[in-house]
């Protein structure tokens, strides 16, 4: 059986859905960040898959993915640093409790 485009896109969609769901429902900042990573990775998969199936002669999709992974890593590091600092200051990473800067 040949692997079709759809076979890649469906798991990617499920992954994205999981990411959205996690992003909306989790209260823990770390969990929210993981959900964010899930969404990002599903988009990466889409990039690669569309490049592979629709434009096999070019490599832009691959490059973009590599870029995205690198930037995502940097951004994750930054986000983790923020979360750790928030935790140090407030002893808490629950997003509903952290509203000191609101209003």
């Amino acid at each position, binding site marked *: 059986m040949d692997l079709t485009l759809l076979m890649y896109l469906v798991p990617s969609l499920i992954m994205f859905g999981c990411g*959205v769901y996690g*992003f*909306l429902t989790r209260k823990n900042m770390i969990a*929210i960040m993981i959900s964010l990573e899930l969404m990002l990775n599903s988009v990466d998969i889409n990039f690669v898959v569309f490049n592979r199936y629709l434009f096999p002669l070019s490599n832009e999709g691959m490059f973009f993915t590599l870029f995205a992974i690198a930037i995502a890593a940097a951004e994750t590091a930054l986000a983790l640093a923020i979360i750790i600092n928030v935790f140090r200051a407030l002893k808490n990473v629950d*997003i509903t409790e952290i*509203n000191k*800067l*609101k*209003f």
Partner: protein
Amino acid sequence: MPLNLSIAVVAIPLFMFFFLGLAGVKMSRKLTGVLGVLGMLVTTVLAYGVAFTYFFGTGDGQVTAEGVRQAVIVWNPDWLAFTPTLVARMGIALDPIAAMMLVVITTISLMVHLYSLGYMSDHHGNPEKGFQRFYADLALFTFSMLGLVVATNLFQIFIFFEMVGVSSYLLIGFYFHSPAAIHASKKAFIVTRLADLFFLLGIMILSYYTGTFDFFNQNGMVGMTDSMDAAKAAIGSAGAQTFMGCSVMAWALTFIFIGGAGKSAMYPLHIWLPDAMEGPTPVSALIHAATMVVAGVFLVARLFPLYVIEQGAMDIICVVGAFTAFYAAAIACVQSDIKRALAFSTISQIAFMMTSLAVSSADNGLIEIHEGYGLGYMASMFHLFTHAMFKALLFLCAGAIIHAVHSNENKDMHGLHKYMPITSFAFLIGCLAIAGIPPFAGFWSKDEILVACYEKGLGWGLWMSAVAGMTAFYMFRIYFLIFHWKEHKVHTEHKPADQVWTMTLPLIILSVVSIVAGFVPMHDLVTWDGKELHTQLNWVVAGSSVAIACVGIGLAYVMYFKENPLPSKMKNSMNGLWTAAYHRFYMDELYQFITHKVIFKAICVPIAWFDRKFIDGFMNMLADVTNRAAYGVRRMQSGSIQSYVYVYIMGALLIAVVSIVCVLM
């Protein structure tokens, strides 16, 4: 003495004001008072010198040319240039009335300064607070009044008009811890300020049509008739313009007269003057008897060349003056507070001056100078001069009496002749002078006024003669009630007596002046066109006015010399009239009614309601709606990323569904 010294005459009181006002608190009370008196003495000597040089100077100082006394502009720098031609200047001009007023103001002011050394030194046995402030304010007033009379233009006269108003306000409210004094000072300020609004309107109209504020031409010495030519030209050009049936010039001059009427307490703007008696008595003598209250007369006299052309404005002044003279005299007949009675007497006498000015233009619609023309003007200025002297004398006597018995009411006085002989004689001289008994000062000036009135018409003359008779009656009523009537009830703690020499000396000096002031050859010195006026005593008028005055005095003698039931019988027989006159014909109540019931209740309250409900309400509604909207919208901007994303995703899904549905259909 060079006329330039008139600058010093005006400058010294100003300097004394700043000096005593700023350094006074550091000095002892006595030093302040003595310095104030000395400063005033120097001013007085200089003013006398300037006036003497102006009137009698020969050689370089001579100001007459071809028998006409010229106005001299001593100093006149530009101050505010509105347009190249319309310039407000600040300067000093001397003409007969200015020179005469310099003498009057400085004399009375010096007497009052001296008198206050005694009068203000104690207040019911305690040292008077604010002694230094009192002298500073006196100096300020003297400066303002001097600046007013030497003004070279309308703009300057207006500024000094306001300044005398302010100093009057400060001095009436000198006892600022007493509510009555505060009310009186506010009332005086507001009423005169209201009148000054009309004055300002008049100045604007007049300066718009004539293109100048100046009284005199700028080319050094000019005849006063020159300013009249300019006025004639101006009226000629503006004469075609009419507003509500009267020429604009008539409106302007009437408005200016209203300003003067406010200061000079003409009916119906007189209500502030009786209340102003709440101030210290020397202040009443200086400001509210002799100087400031004649500012209105002075103003009309200053603009006399314009008024003679405008018969309509003159008629208004004439009617107002004649009515006020009678009205105030009627009230003065029944007042029990001696200062108030004197205040109404002042109003009546100033009305005499106003009427005299106004009858001056008798039977001439055109500018035609005939013999006797301008007699009223001279008589008015003459009466201003003599009245200042004897009315200041009467007020200072009243102050001495009040100081002795600690009351303003004549029921607390009675029979003081035995205890205060000097004051009694001084008061008697003042009364004889105001009643018009020869040879006292009032006779000569009042006689001229009556002659001028008879020239205008028999009715005017008879009316004013009758008022002169009332004057004699009420003045002697006051005199007899204070000094005779019955034995004085002596309180054991202190007996009333003549006061200290600082208070008695001014009385003696002013008594002498009141006797001799009538012999000043005023008709040679102070005339409206600067020429000598040939007058002679009109024996018919003089004889009849003396007879009327004697009848008035006789009536007062019968009723008030010895205690008797006649006055109370009179009072009961015409109770309504007596009560009405005692309550000043309810003018104050009328004002109270108009301001409170009509203006406040019927106009201000609805306006305030409209303002609060509609204007403020609309603005508040806008603010309220914005506030509420913001409060509602606030919840949307929660700062919670999760809810933003939720809304975003839901929106995106909705759009997706809609577009799919659209594509499928």
